[in-house]
């Protein structure tokens, strides 16, 4: 007799969504989370009595409640969460800046991006419009071999700078491979970011996670924290249960693993495939006192910048690559403004980073801390090049590196977007063990939750 019918490895957003979807019909489900709290890559921690978010810059796929077929609203229906329970604040606008010379501005109104392209790249506009018209012809949900998003863009738009500028936010917000992404994934993300747009839940990621957890528990589901899985017990391509690191065994009828493809093979004790290059990031959070509000822009949500030609989205040779990055102002979402939250301005700066160099550095804690301090200082100077002089007195600053991600999540090499190879259907050749989450290839908060729901719908519910 199994302890649970379904066990989900990982209490991140894909795992929680899968768990809620299943618990709506059968409460006999357990989520195992290795950390002390849920959320995975999109979680939070406390320092100096303040809550800081990890991960979350913005939620993509913003859609008004009346758009019933929008991915966000379909997802909420599947989880039986009322849209009103999720107060979403749309972004104000964001920018893509290349070499201090080209700026594209985009908001949740696609016309703004088109208008900017008309001004900055008039000769490329017809190609861009043709690309936009052909976009619906890509069916992202029909399984197909890898197709290059970059090549598809280049086949319509003959300006290499514009191609790089359009790719830049999409790569930073979800590509697990260097300089490109799969065309299916690109089509999903282009819609999620440029056509639908960015938003933030009211409050912090904790409010969203608390709401999901309360809903899950009210349906009768169970979750355990600090429950790291050591091994999946299996035979004949069938999973029978799990062994936890504390020595406990849990028997179950089915497993969904959200910890990644390679990470799941490792739990199965399988020979691991040769590792491909993985994309890592550093991010520094600078939190300023309330009185510094006047020193920060109020009308911009994110700035994606790049100063190298061509734009390189790759694991850098150095410990970080300051030539490009993302500046995020979490307080600048409409209706979620500084004055109403009582918090001072926050600036988050993200750059590409080299996992191995950080991992080597982390063997000496003192050197690692010094390097974090040095890099966050450099990051700050990069931000000043874009924003002008900033106040030098952040009340708090903290940096995460790929080593931090590897420690608190399961992500191999601290790669937030996982493996370059995606298992789009979640099928890894087992009768009752499936992948969901990052390595299924759907990204972002809405994407990862849809991933969890779709695996339950496809493999678990119809077979019960």
């Amino acid at each position, binding site marked *: 007799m199994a302890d649970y019918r379904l066990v989900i490895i990982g209490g991140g957003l894909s795992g929680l969504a899968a768990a809620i979807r299943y618990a709506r019909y059968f409460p006999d489900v357990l989520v195992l989370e290795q950390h002390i709290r849920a959320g995975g890559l999109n979680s939070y921690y406390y320092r100096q009595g303040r809550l800081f978010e990890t991960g979350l810059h913005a939620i993509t796929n913003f859609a008004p409640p009346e758009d*019933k077929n929008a991915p966000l609203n379909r997802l909420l229906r599947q989880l039986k969460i009322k849209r009103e329970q999720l107060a979403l604040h749309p972004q104000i606008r964001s920018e893509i800046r290349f070499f201090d010379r080209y700026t594209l501005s985009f908001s949740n109104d696609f016309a703004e991006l088109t208008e900017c392209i008309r001004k900055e790249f008039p000769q490329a506009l017809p190609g861009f419009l043709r690309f936009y018209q052909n976009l619906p012809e890509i069916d992202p949900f029909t399984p197909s071999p890898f197709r290059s998003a970059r090549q598809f863009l280049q086949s319509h738009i003959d300006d290499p700078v514009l191609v790089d500028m359009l790719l830049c936010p999409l790569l930073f917000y979800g590509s697990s491979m260097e300089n490109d992404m799969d065309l299916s994934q690109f089509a999903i993300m282009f819609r999620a970011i440029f056509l639908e747009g960015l938003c933030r839940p009211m409050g912090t990621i904790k409010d969203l996670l608390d709401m999901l957890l309360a809903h899950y528990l009210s349906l009768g589901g169970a979750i355990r924290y600090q429950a790291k899985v050591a091994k999946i017990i299996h035979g004949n391509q069938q999973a029978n249960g799990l062994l936890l690191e504390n020595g406990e065994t849990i028997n179950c009828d089915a497993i969904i693993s959200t910890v990644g493809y390679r990470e799941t093979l490792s739990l199965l004790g399988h020979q691991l495939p040769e590792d491909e290059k993985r994309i890592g990031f550093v991010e520094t959070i600078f939190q300023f006192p309330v009185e510094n509000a006047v020193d920060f822009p109020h009308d911009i949500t994110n700035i994606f910048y790049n100063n190298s030609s061509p734009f390189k989205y790759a694991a850098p040779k150095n410990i970080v690559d300051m030539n490009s990055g993302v500046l995020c102002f979490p307080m600048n979402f409409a209706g979620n403004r500084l004055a109403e939250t009582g918090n001072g301005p926050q600036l988050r700066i993200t750059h590409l980073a080299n996992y191995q160099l950080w991992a080597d550095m982390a063997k000496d804690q003192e050197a690692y801390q010094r390097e974090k301090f040095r890099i966050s200082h450099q990051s700050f100077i990069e931000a000043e090049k874009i924003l002008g002089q900033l106040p030098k007195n952040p009340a708090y600053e903290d940096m995460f590196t790929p080593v931090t991600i590897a420690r608190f999540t399961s992500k191999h090499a601290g790669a937030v977007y996982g493996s370059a190879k995606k298992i789009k259907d979640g099928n890894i050749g087992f009768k009752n063990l499936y992948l969901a989450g990052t390595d299924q290839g759907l990204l972002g908060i809405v994407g990862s939750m849809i991933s969890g729901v779709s695996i339950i719908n496809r493999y678990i519910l119809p*077979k019960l």
Partner: protein
Amino acid sequence: MTASDIKQVILDIIADIDDEADFSGLDASKPLRDQLDLDSMDFLDIVMELRKRYKLQIPEADYPQLATLNSCVTYLGPKLAAI
């Protein structure tokens, strides 16, 4: 259950999935999905709700039998006769 009871059960389930679903002018002989703008994910909810409420096991191969209100009555009638 009578035929009209079964139709009401299906409509109740759909109303629960989408509280703005508009049943006026619904043609019982035409596919529910097209008329009510339901996607395959919503459709699975109908199957799962029938299972939850009436312990009905509907194999995947039979899902097409639930396409219209009339075909629901034909397919579910014998299964729900005792309820």
